[in-house]
């Protein structure tokens, strides 16, 4: 599971982090894609509470890099909390932005999303490696 790591001392993870943009480059509740040095694509989401969530940009059902262009929302999950979500613009599967868990498969088998650790430092967004569930 990803944790919002803004309070974590930066040095402990420095090696794994990539600076992709400023927080102000992001738009609340609208994703942006970023390209990591190894060629993988991630989707970044700035939420209304100021948190930034990062998941893989690739829709695991369609195989296309489109998730940053989906609709951000929320969904009530089993523990009674509202979790932030992303819906694919292609066939509307929905994932939990905190955990990458697929919440709506539209009848397909479950395919979860890799999530990335994020740190915000000096207004910059730093992204860690994927943590697959």
């Amino acid at each position, binding site marked *: 599971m990803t944790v919002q790591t803004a309070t974590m001392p930066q040095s402990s993870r420095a090696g794994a982090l990539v600076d992709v943009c400023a927080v102000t480059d992001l738009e609340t509740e609208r994703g942006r894609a970023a*390209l990591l040095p190894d060629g993988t694509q991630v989707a970044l989401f700035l939420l209304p509470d100021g948190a930034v969530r990062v998941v893989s940009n690739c829709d695991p059902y369609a195989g296309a890099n489109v998730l940053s262009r*989906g609709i951000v929302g929320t969904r009530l999950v089993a523990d009674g909390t509202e979790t932030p979500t992303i819906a694919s613009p292609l066939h509307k599967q929905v994932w939990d932005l905190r955990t990458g868990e697929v919440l709506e498969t539209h009848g397909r088998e479950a395919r979860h999303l890799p999530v990335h650790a994020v740190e915000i430092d000096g207004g910059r967004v730093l992204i860690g490696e994927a943590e697959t569930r």
Partner: protein
Amino acid sequence: MTSRSHAEPSPSTDAHRIVVIGAGMVAHRFVESLLSRGDAPWRIAVIGDEPRAPYDRVGLTSWFEGRAAEDLALDAASLSDPRVELVTGDAATFIDRGGRIVTTSARRRYEYDTLVLATGSYAARPAIDGSHLPGTFVYRTIDDLEDITAFVRQRSAELGRPLRGTVVGGGLLGLEAAGALQGLEVDCTVIHSGTHLLSAQIDRAGGEVLGRLIRERDIRIRTESRATRVAPGPEGAVAALEFPDGSYEESDLVIFTVGVRPNDSLARDAGLDAEPRGGVRIDDGCATNDPSVLAIGEVASHGGRSVGLVAPGYAMAEVAADRLCGGESTFPGFDESTKLKLSGVDVASFGDAFAASPNALDVVFSDPVGGTYKKLVLSDDAKTLLGGVLVGDASAYGSLRPLVGGPLGGDPSAYLMPSDGVAAPTGDLPDEAIVCSCSSVTAGRIRGAVHEDGCADADEVKACTRAGATCGSCFVMVKKLVGKELTSLGKTVSNALCEHFEMSRRQLFDAVRVAELTTFTQIIERFGHGRGCDVCKPTVASILSGLVGEHVLDGENATLQDTNDHVMANMQKDGSYSVVPRMPGGEVTPEGLVVIGSVAKKYGLYTKLTGGQRIDMFGARLEQLPLIWRELVDAGFESGQAYGKSLRTVKSCVGSTWCRYGVLDAVGMAVNLELRYRGLRSPHKLKLGVSGCARECAEARGKDVGVIAAENGWNMYVGGNGGFTPRHAELLSEGLSNAELIRAIDRFFMYYIRTADRLQRTAPWVQELEGGLDGLREVIFEDSLGICDDLDAAMARHVAGYQDEWAATLEDPDKLRRFHSFVNAPDTPDPSLAYVSERDQVRPASVEERESGAVIIAGTTLEVRR
């Protein structure tokens, strides 16, 4: 005359002898209540003059809907109790108070310890000539209905045509009677002396909305008029009504619904105190001036008033039963809340509907388009609900009525929104709130029925508690409470728009319009919860575009759009986009074609003609969209909105300009229409077609609006559809001039946009329209709703406010940033895109092709080679 378990009056025993005169609804409730209070050895005689056991008078009209007389019968269990004797078809004719004996017309004698008068009311006839002619009726008993039906059958056979009928009195009963006459295929007029229908229950503004709803059902209304005479025809039966100005209205049948009068003559003759205007006087314990005589129901007058509703009668029945058992309960006074039961027309009034309380405030919501009018009356601090009027949509009645006199606990406007879902208080009603006033069932009792009695749905709760079993007006509320309790037990799923909004698109549209909100955040905070999803966000975007009309990418609202609207192109399976410039009417110049060709060539796009008579270019990457559109806009093209829930294309044939059969200029009209409606956002996409003659080469009848040229002008068809459920458009009007055609389409579209549901195309919308095509014609051509000025103005605003979304976006650097492929590499193409060649153009590579690598002719970094 029948008598069940009839015995001659027996010598007095130790049992308390009760005689009930009248075997109506209230008498029935009284007996039921008394028996439910224990095993005391009552001897109860119930004497009724109608030839049947007590029945549901409130549900009388359902007899016309095929409910047999037996189905109307009230629960027989209490009446078959050995302590009860029911006499039907016999009238009590004399009360000897000294000897405590009641005598009937069949000369039965009943001694009593307590006498209960429950004789109800009779329906009055006005004191005018001819009010008793054959063919005149009242509307009170099953016998009345049988007489009316028999008369209609016989008379229409005699006359060899459908009958014309008049209902005199436009109150609750009058409207029910009018609906019933219509059911008998009698062409019906309602005459009412007041300024508006239901003038005793609702205010004038509400009455006017109601008038429109009734007229829509083809019932004529004549207000502020009084008949002075019922005139007979040559055979002596009713032929016409005469009015003070000497005018006549032909009518083969008249039903009087001018009010009811308490059946108090028996009581008066026995020297019991009665009001001069009718009604046996009772105290808070339902006793008359003779302590051994009680009066309950419509015959009783409390505080100088008798009220023709069943709920106060039931309350009196409970009080009387309780008193007989030694209790102290008192009649709480009249609750005059009512709901009209005319199918398809929702009207309710409750509490202080006329805002008679000092300093009362009104909150009014009026929607002439949807045919609703709602008013809440509040205390001067706007906190306490005093009453209200609901017309056109009374779904909130069940939840509002129990709140009368208590705090509203929320924003009044939220209760007025057109929804039964919004009625926020539903689940929060206190346990002691009376939900069903007919049967005095509290919210707590209903909750208990689910939790303790194990009822699995609202119908079971109804059977178990009787909530909703009488007038039915509280049943929506009962359902909601039950639904909520079941959900808390994990038993049902919500059927709302999505988990964030409990409303439908139409309800939300009205809510947003009334509350004048302009952003998603305001809307969801007020009417929903959470932060939305892929269902409600685009819905709100569409609603706001209709009401506010900003650019799709302005402000926060940009985040509501699905990617297609967000980047103004259609996403394809690999994440690239298609580009569709508008080509109005399918017309394109050779220069235009050259530009399209060169753009497609430059950016390596696959090109194809669409089914909508224009050209689609596929395979454009996100960051290429502004570059491509710069070239297209510079060459005079604009967005074709192939992505939006908005006007798509107006398909046309060549028409009279070239075709040897054409009678009118189809292309000219198509271009005209496409330019007029371009960019118009709607609940679903809109398509039009224009054919130059009846051969219909443009397939116009497969469109939302089809226009077909004829010798005497344009014929307009509506509600056509291709796609999944094909349907031909139907003729709305013929022989229209250019201007008439455009005005009719303007109104049709605006009416649809305001009232259709999310993703409902015009075809199902037209099919569901109340009043069907005729109703639609009246709205559009006769302004039956009085909204045409509004609709015209809304369309004029659209036409004047149109701007090309793409041209505007290209001028705005902030919006252009959204087209960056990567936040950290704005122009770098998506490295995962890969294409192969097929029939000399590109197409996305399949997974196998990608994996083999061999056939790929173009990654995004390569130029396409042919």
